[in-house]
């Protein structure tokens, strides 16, 4: 055989292997410390178009872990974060979930952003008894499968959507509503729940249209909306597209109220839409974080550590990780200060009924949904974030 030809191939492989062997020795070095290492994994998209939100979630969780580090060190544990990038891809999410399962020092996961990734990955977590606290998956199927390890602190689509619809029809007196959604699991689920409830309340749905995520020109759909003369537009989706829809609708002379879900709760909405953001409403589960002293401190710490302003998603990330750590702490105490099993951690997290987070109170019901998830409706009166709170809706 031709040995010469193999040389470049060999050299590349040896290079790669060398790098990995570095990895192995690196992690071995980390593990040889006296304290037992406990890792909390985060799994969110850190690259690709959705990385802004994914990064905000990760940073929030990172801050929570840093805050708790000292408390865990006192008990003899070294708390660390292990960020994974799921690239918003279900395959990658599941492969990462397997890697997470194989690292026995990981006792819990904060994630994901996309329900499409969360659902298959959580099957893996469940098999390995790893508890997952989701900061952002609103799809009903996430918890409706009845997995013991899956919890979330955010509101379900079938709570948030109808809450928005009630406000739109009863308070804003919308008769003709034009619904736009972004054809993702999040936007679709929210818009559907909104549409059904609005129709039930007697409003006329004059259009139900989808857009493509990643595009920047939505004037086609907006022209159609103009022709239908609605008195409210509802958008199910995230700010990157939503901000532009608001802006382009105003450019075409639609000065009616526009409404969205918690995916629009970001300073970027204002940045993108500019002045057009006035008269835009959105529903979210996060109250005004900066109002409370705790929240203010969080915002300041966040800014100091990462050099960025907080997003609502960073607060979700922070709260998810905090709840998870609280459960972990309870499990450690219950186990007499020794390292608990994954199963015990999962049980302890599910058992939390009254945790005061910075964004929301958390208490899990038997399915893992948050009992305290509240919906707040906000309105932009001027082009500045955060917006003004106009309504508060508690779970029935």
């Amino acid at each position, binding site marked *: *055989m031709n*040995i010469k030809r*193999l040389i*470049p*191939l060999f050299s*590349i492989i040896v290079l790669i*292997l060398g*790098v*990995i*062997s570095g*990895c*192995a020795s*690196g*992690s071995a*070095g*980390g593990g040889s410390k006296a304290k037992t290492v406990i890792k909390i994994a985060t799994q969110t998209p*850190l*690259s*690709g178009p959705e*990385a802004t939100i994914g990064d905000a979630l*990760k*940073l929030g969780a990172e801050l929570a872990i840093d805050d708790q580090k000292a408390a865990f060190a006192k008990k003899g544990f070294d708390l*660390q*974060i*292990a*960020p*994974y*990038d799921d*690239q*918003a*891809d*279900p*395959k*990658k999410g*599941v*492969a*990462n979930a*397997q*890697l997470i*399962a*194989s*690292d026995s020092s990981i006792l819990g996961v904060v994630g994901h952003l*996309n*329900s*499409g990734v969360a*659902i*298959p990955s959580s*099957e893996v977590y469940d*098999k*390995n008894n790893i508890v997952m606290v989701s900061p952002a998956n609103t*799809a009903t*199927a996430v918890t409706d*499968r009845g997995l013991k390890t899956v919890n979330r602190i955010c509101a379900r689509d079938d709570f948030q959507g109808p809450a928005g619809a009630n406000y739109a029809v009863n308070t804003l007196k919308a008769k003709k509503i034009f619904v736009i959604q972004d*054809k*993702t*699991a999040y936007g*679709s*689920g929210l818009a559907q729940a909104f549409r059904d409830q609005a129709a039930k309340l007697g409003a006329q749905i004059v259009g139900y249209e989808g857009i493509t995520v990643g595009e920047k020109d939505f004037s086609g759909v907006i022209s159609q909306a103009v022709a239908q003369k609605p008195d409210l537009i509802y958008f199910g989706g995230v700010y990157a597209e939503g901000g532009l829809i608001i802006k382009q609708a105003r450019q075409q002379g639609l000065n009616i109220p526009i409404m969205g879900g918690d995916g629009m709760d970001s300073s970027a909405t204002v940045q993108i839409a500019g002045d057009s953001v006035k008269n835009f409403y959105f529903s979210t589960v996060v109250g005004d974080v900066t109002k409370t002293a705790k929240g203010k401190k969080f915002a300041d710490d966040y800014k100091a550590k*990462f*050099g960025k302003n907080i997003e609502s998603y960073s607060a979700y990330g922070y709260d998810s990780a905090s709840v998870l750590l609280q459960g972990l702490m309870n499990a450690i105490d219950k186990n007499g200060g020794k390292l608990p099993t994954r199963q015990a951690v999962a049980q302890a997290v599910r058992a939390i009924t009254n945790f005061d987070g910075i964004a929301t109170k958390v208490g899990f019901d038997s399915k893992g949904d948050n009992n305290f998830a509240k919906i707040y409706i906000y309105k932009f009166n001027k082009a500045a974030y955060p917006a003004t709170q106009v309504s508060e809706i508690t779970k029935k």
Partner: protein
Amino acid sequence: MREQISKFSQSPKAQAIFFAAYVIVTALGLYLMQTSVIAFLLLLFSILILYYLKLKTRTKWLIGLFIIAVVVPLVASQGPSFQSYMEVGTLVGIYAAMSLGLNVVVGFAGLLDLGFIAFFAVGAYTYAIFASTQASHFMPFGHYPLPGDTFWLFILIGAIIASIFGILLGIPVLRVRGDYLAIVTLGFGEIIRIVLNNMDHPINITNGALGISSITPPNFLGIPIGNSSQFYFIVLGIFLVVIYIVTRLEHSKLGRAWKAVRDNEIAAQASGIPLVKTKLAAFAIGASFSGMMGAVFAAKQMYVDATSFTYLESTMILVMVILGGMGSVPGVILGAAVVTILNTQVLTDLSNWLTQLSTNGVISIPDALSPAKMQRLIFGILLVVFALYRTQGLIPHKNRKINVEKLKKEASEAPGGALLSKERAETGGTD
């Protein structure tokens, strides 16, 4: 030194001993260091070494199969990383089978296809719809979800439906050539994806963007299959079937017709090759491999939505084929393995290691450049480097050498039919 190397490369015995030693050492390494990805990769690397050894083709196959089906799962099964390795193995198998399918279309028949993932999607959705309550939304009869035993049937059904789609795609293709074909297939892939993502109204067939969840896991003689290690063997089985078909086809009449069409369409047509049939066969066969793996994928994930079937996925499979070496069966498999392992394991581990270093304060990286975000960047760099240094692919395609003297002798001994049958017997092996 050089003499020794040449001596070594001539002696099958020395090679066999070296190889056995290598396998034993790396297997032992993995056995003792369960969480070490290097040990796992070194063990897998033995397959590549095996490929270059001077042994009989059949022996190589048997040894390779033994390593993949017995040694790797057995050795890896002792530690916590077992399922993770098996997951990677499963993904490699899925992608390798798909790349082999695409290789039939692009490598053998020379038809550039940028929408290949569509067939995978069709297979996945076929199983997903019928193995969940989704089918009861539009099917007038039957009780859904179907039980997990039907999974085995759905591997076949997925293949058939995907190949029907392959033929559907083939129809416009008969008139369109070259890079126009690329854009038609790209359009086709996008059409399939968008339609699957939107078929929740007027009739709810695919549940639209919300995807299909709670897909029934397959069932083997009453045992429910849910772990990656179990799927690994299913995938391995299908993969072997795929390899068998591909290697058989490559040197068959159809395979030679594909290559003739690839090299020069008009000349091929002039020498009596039916263009329509040949091209459609390439699409149908290539698509059917993807369809089978699609059904497995749906069963493995237990959830399907359209985000798994984007245009980027199609290009990724194309990258595997080109990187491995177009038209070369072992090359394509290697390409699929390299890309998949890099993407799902090595890059993730690498970035975890860098994160670890920065949290332990060994190196300091600003948050905007956090290594967890760099996977795609590193992947891009590797792609460029690989392509620049292995311009013909990792294992370039080789034409099978035909021993002219032997053929002549045979022809003079037994004129007529005997020649054909002899030749056919010879095509069984791989090159």
